[in-house]
């Protein structure tokens, strides 16, 4: 078993609550979702997020990020033949997908702002090469997917 300290779990839980508040306010501004009506769904989402962190800490040997554990847990609870599916989808439905993305990117922006200095030191050539790498992986995968999906008759 990995590192399952109560203190660490409480610390993470506290941070998740802050994130939950940001999401609730954000989706109220952006989508008009009432904060109180969305609260049960938000609590459920936070509890599963916490569970994902605990699973990750419990199995450090499996190199799977907590993000993926969170997806996996919610995936299992919402599969069509699961008895939990209807309730789970209805409750978490009050948390907007796009509403969860805005705080992440705000934190991401803050955390990378100071790295602009490091970027300035890189050769501009690497900047172009990096963008080419992004385009390469994206369209490489898209073209293969397009061909295989067509062969399978899905698209």
């Amino acid at each position, binding site marked *: 078993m990995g590192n399952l300290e109560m203190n660490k779990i409480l610390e993470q839980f506290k941070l998740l609550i802050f994130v939950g508040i940001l999401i609730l306010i954000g989706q109220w501004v952006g989508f008009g979702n009432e904060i109180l009506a969305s609260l049960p769904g938000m609590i459920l989402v936070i509890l599963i997020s916490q569970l994902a962190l605990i699973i990750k800490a419990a199995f450090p040997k499996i190199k799977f990020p907590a993000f993926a554990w969170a997806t996996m847990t919610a995936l*299992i609870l*919402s599969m069509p033949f699961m008895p939990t599916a209807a309730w789970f989808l209805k409750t978490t439905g009050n948390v907007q997908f796009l509403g969860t993305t*805005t705080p992440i990117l705000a934190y991401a*922006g803050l955390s990378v702002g100071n790295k*602009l200095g490091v970027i300035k030191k890189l050769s501009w050539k690497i900047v172009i090469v990096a963008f080419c790498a992004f385009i390469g992986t994206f369209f490489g995968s898209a073209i293969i*997917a397009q061909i295989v*999906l067509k062969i399978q008759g899905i698209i």
Partner: protein
Amino acid sequence: MADKMFTKGLINSFVAVLIIVIISEFIGINSFSVGIATVTLLPMLFAVIFGILATPGILGKVIPPLKKLVNDEVIEFAGPMVMIALLPLGVKYGTLVGPNVLKIIQAGPAFLLQEFGNIGTIFVALPVALLLGLKREAVGASVSICREVTLGIMGEKYGIDSPEGTGTLGTYLIGTVFGTIFFGLLGSLSLATGLHPLALAMASGMGSGSMMTAASSSLAAAVDPALSETVLAYAATSNMLTGVTGLYMVIFISIPLVNKLYDILEPILGRKGGKNNG
């Protein structure tokens, strides 16, 4: 105890992020067309730009009170907070994949095979790097999109201070700073290529949670609403898959391939007498 419970980094970053979130959500979703392509700007895109602008090195220099709110402690705190803030999104992705699980299993072969598309980085970026006069940095910069896993592998194999390591670190940093902005624009723009939204959705899952989110959300906002949920579900599934296969892909396929291709292409495309640092 009380001030240990709520550190300045936590409170200040909360206030800063709250302000950024409110402004970004208030601006909302904006779409406009550029020729045949449509660009969809999501609140998350504004949020990352406002976040970067708010840091001490940029607007903090001009507006002193901002520097008091967003100080170095906040910047340091914001990094680990990204990981925590990603989790509710992970849950939401799960609720998109779950109901579509049978459709996804059906598309299994496409999901597995498109993983090989990740070596597309090498075919596009390596020739460009060589034409620009890069030498061994080109190998590191084009081996993959260079997220943490690749950084670890390349660091171990070549050393992070080596030319190869410098290249990988370069692509990593560019991805960290500009990745979400780049893919947030590419996600909706890519529809203009005529590739099917589901193929583009699979392509959005490239092993980085935030880049996948940027690409797939802007794609989902630009397609027919009936297709949006499937787009997000496909992207999340493909991203999970890359999380599993990515490491092996880099070690067993990408590194040998990029070196082989370098040996072939360097004499043709490489600049004679080029300096190592380009």
